[in-house]
């Protein structure tokens, strides 16, 4: 009997469900690793990313093909973003009690995070394209990509900066804040939501529902502010 191993393997890899299944499997593995060790460096998104990139390289799969197959997952990002309104609403009572601290922190902190990122990249000698792409790094991927495009950066690269910032924020955020005795769920949530968008918000949700609510609030308002104000600011400066 002459079994066609190669043909079978190719058929599996080319199946539309392959990327979906692979991502699910790798994510569960990463989750297992994180829950077993509780090491902050084993942030599930980061570990999954590393394993998947290695797998794609070994199996010689194009990112475009992988992305196509993983659409089942990425399509749900929209409804998931919408769903953030629910924890936001459920914790509205708490947010309303500290309305002014929240709003002041959002404006001052959001501006601070954006300006500092661009200023540092400029000091370190990054090119204009990188500067314009790094500016919207603190907001969710779709907004960051749109804004980067609008102000003359690279949309796809913006997604990468957003991802690196988000993963780093989720990996280190809560722990770093704790070292400096910043323990209140409101403060943790605001910091994670403003600086590390959706990934930070997912991390804040793991911490507590209240932190998650503040993170969701911070993320959405930060996103809206960046989308509206950044193109205006760049137009005024340039």
């Amino acid at each position: 009997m002459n079994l066609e191993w190669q043909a079978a393997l190719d058929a599996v890899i080319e199946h539309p469900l392959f990327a979906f299944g692979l991502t699910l499997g790798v994510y569960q593995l990463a989750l297992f690793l994180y829950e077993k060790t509780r090491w902050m460096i084993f942030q599930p998104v980061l570990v999954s990313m590393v394993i998947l990139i290695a797998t794609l390289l070994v199996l010689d799969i194009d990112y475009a093909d992988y992305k196509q197959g993983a659409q089942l997952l990425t399509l749900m990002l929209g409804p998931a973003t919408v769903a953030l309104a629910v924890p936001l609403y459920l914790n509205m009572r708490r947010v309303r009690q500290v309305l002014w601290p929240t709003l002041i922190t959002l404006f001052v902190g959001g501006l601070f995070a954006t300006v500092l990122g661009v200023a540092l990249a400029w000091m370190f000698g990054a090119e204009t394209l990188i500067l314009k792409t790094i500016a919207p790094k603190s907001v969710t991927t779709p907004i960051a990509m749109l804004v980067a495009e609008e102000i003359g950066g690279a949309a796809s690269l913006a997604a990468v900066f957003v991802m690196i910032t988000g993963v780093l924020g989720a990996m280190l955020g809560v722990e770093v804040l704790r070292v400096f005795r910043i323990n209140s769920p409101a403060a943790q949530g605001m910091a994670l939501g403003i600086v590390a968008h959706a990934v930070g918000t997912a991390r804040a949700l793991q911490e507590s529902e209240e932190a998650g609510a503040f993170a969701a609030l911070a993320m959405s308002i930060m996103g809206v502010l960046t989308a509206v104000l950044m193109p205006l600011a760049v137009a005024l400066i340039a």
Partner: protein
Amino acid sequence: MLLRGLSWLVVFQLVGTALNVLFFPVLPGPIIGLVLLFIYLLLQGRVNEPLNEAATSVLRYLPLLLVPPAVGVIVHMSDIKADLWAIIGALVISLLVSLLFIGWLMQLLVNRQARAKDKS
């Protein structure tokens, strides 16, 4: 129940997409959808069970949904390599400093407000 809640989430996202094309080209559909759902919940005064169930389920898997875009780093390896240290320096330092500044500011303002309330 789960399906009904999920349908609502999708409807809000799609209405957001329509409004994005019609009025707000800079705001992505999902963000407009989030704002709309939030306003809807404020008007209704409560979260109905299907919506709550769907939101809880979807949000539990939010990190999983972000994995495929994260893998996109693979396409930009050479751009990143060119400015590697500037990028890492700017991203890491600004992340840590902003994180601490924002956390500190929020905690300070919240505590100050609490003290002011105690006095009055």
